[in-house]
């Protein structure tokens, strides 16, 4: 019987500081035992538990994409005991990784030529980056209609994966709308303003073949939801990734429950009408 | 602490002004002697979590 609590040993291969105030770092992990990477096959939208022996575990969305082989990437915001300890670790340190956990974005439905709108805010852009790279992969790009991305952060320094954002900006098969809440940088080429109004101006019309994936702080989700409804996105086409306190990550310890569903096992990805059927306890 | 079963000599308090370096040295010696007299701490020790 496979022990679901036992993490795969991994080594930190590379650390890149994402945010200007060093609160966000992207960690690139490499599996120590070669058989583990196949066992860790995951889909875009899933998360995993980063396990530091003697300190604890923390659930983080997988930032690398299933099409990127040989490593797994996570972007971690320094918040609690485990994440602070992780931020103090250096390349070459050994730790653990448990997963992949939870469900993923409904790729089967969306791969039928559907248009996809991605709305991201702050550091919740990790699983969205994984999705974008998955969709832009030559093998998969043809399965989707057009792809729009609205991604906002507090300031230019807080944007994640800046180099990749610039790269995607150049491509023609994806239209990027990057925004920041405010900036005093004169040559800031992109939008300025909060995500909901920018979504209202730039996002395409909804319809039964359009899906919207929304990930970000609760305040952003609260104000983006009416905008998407106005644009005609049906409730079962608005997809969200929820966050809750988690320990086991595979639906046994009972703490991440919202009504009948467990965020870690039946989620973290839910459609809006699923969420409307559960009590607001996340 | 005493009621709980920890030897009184395991806990020392003192009041030393920053000028009284001699008193400091004497108190250190006295405390060390007393602790040596009662031996290592066996009661309030937790080396591994004794659980199921």
């Amino acid at each position: 019987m496979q022990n679901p609590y036992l993490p795969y040993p991994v080594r930190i291969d590379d650390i890149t500081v994402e945010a200007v105030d060093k609160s966000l770092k992207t960690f690139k992990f490499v599996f120590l035992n070669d058989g583990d990477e196949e066992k860790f096959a995951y889909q875009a939208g899933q998360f995993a538990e980063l396990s530091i022996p003697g300190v604890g575990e923390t659930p983080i969305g997988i930032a690398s994409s299933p099409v990127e082989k040989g490593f797994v990437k996570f972007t971690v915001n320094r918040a609690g005991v485990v994440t602070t300890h992780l931020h103090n670790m250096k390349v070459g340190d050994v730790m653990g990784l448990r997963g992949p956990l939870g469900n993923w974005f409904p790729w089967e439905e969306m791969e039928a030529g559907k248009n996809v709108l991605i709305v991201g805010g702050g550091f919740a852009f990790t699983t969205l980056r994984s999705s974008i790279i998955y969709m832009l992969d030559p093998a998969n790009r043809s399965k989707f209609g057009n792809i729009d991305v609205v991604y906002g952060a507090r300031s230019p320094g807080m944007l994640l994966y800046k180099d990749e954002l610039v790269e995607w900006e150049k491509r023609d098969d994806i239209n990027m709308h990057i925004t920041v809440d405010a900036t005093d940088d004169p040559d800031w080429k992109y939008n300025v303003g909060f995500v909901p109004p920018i979504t209202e101006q730039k996002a395409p019309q909804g319809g039964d073949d359009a899906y919207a994936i929304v990930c970000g702080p609760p305040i952003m989700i609260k104000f983006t939801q009416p905008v998407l409804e106005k644009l005609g996105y049906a409730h079962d086409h608005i997809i969200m990734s929820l966050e809750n306190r988690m320990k086991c990550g595979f639906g046994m310890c009972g703490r991440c429950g919202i009504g009948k569903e467990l965020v870690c096992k039946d989620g973290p990805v839910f459609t809006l009408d699923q969420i409307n059927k559960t009590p607001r306890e996340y | 602490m005493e009621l709980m079963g920890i030897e009184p000599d395991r806990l020392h308090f003192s009041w030393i002004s920053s000028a009284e370096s001699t008193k400091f040295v004497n108190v250190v010696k006295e405390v060390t002697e007393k602790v040596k007299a009662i031996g290592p701490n066996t009661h309030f020790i937790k080396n591994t979590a004794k659980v199921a």
Partner: protein
Amino acid sequence: MTILKIDKKNWAEGLTAAANTYRLFGPVKEKDYHQFKALEKGEMPDLDMINTRLSPKALLFPQSEAMLECSLDESRDDHHIMKEIVRDDKPRAVVGIRPCDAKSTLLVKLNFDTPDVQDPYWLGAYHATTFIGMACDTPLSTCFCTTAGCGPYHEEGLDMLVMEQGDAYLAKLLTDKGKAFAAAAGWSETADDSAAFEAGRKAAEDRIVSTVKTDNLAATDLLELHGAPFWEDIAFSCINCGTCTFSCPTCWCFDIQDEVHGKSGVRMKNWDSCMFPIFTVHTTGHNPRDAKAQRVRQRFMHKLKYFVDKYDAGIMCVGCGRCVRQCPVNIDIRRVCEQMNSFKTAESCAAEG
């Protein structure tokens, strides 16, 4: 279904015989209440009790159990790599468990034994344990097992059901685990006295005084029940201690904690309770269930609504009455279930009115 007749005289030596292949557990009286404990050599389970104060779930799901260990000593080459702690899954036998507690193991099994992921610690203990149940002839006034999906002579979850008859015991062997234990104990004198079990069951069930109606829990809409007006009144007196969840046989929530001593780290699984605020608090400090009433609502909704909808196996309660007896402020699940069951949503009473 073979039924054995065991004379009380050779009940003790039967158990001692079984003790060399099984590690025996049973109720032992400590201070002023009974508790399930490992029985020393030759120690007999003390059966003159109605039920133990805390549930026997600690036998399969200890309050704190070390799961993984690792060395943090940099000099070793396997430092920081977690290794599973080997469990001693030698055969064990629990003698004297009541049918309601045995049924609770099946409800808890729904959580720890799901098709795609299984908990090796709980299942390892479960498969290694043989449950020797004692039929319950003198239920308490707070027992409502007959209306909570089981009963004083219920057989689900048990490997052997033992019933007292004069100066002998009648033991109904239910599973081959039960047969194996009977063989190890050397009991073999059969007696097809199923009528005695039937009569015993009838008599015991009539002595149950308190009942619980759960018929339209499943039908009521989840969100309506969640927004019902009576939660504030139910939760007022609650002091948010963990007594009800820790004494309940069907509560399975746990916490994972790491502890380091010197150069060795341990990852352990501890009981946890939805009554504690830190159960759901996020690292940012946001707590989805911040108010006391939300937490009390979560406990009863999970037991009497979410579980009913999710597993469709009745309520997540076996009616043992421990939470009623142990609650320091006497919050009574029977009264809560009554209010939840008879809760009329706005439009349904309009329809009737």
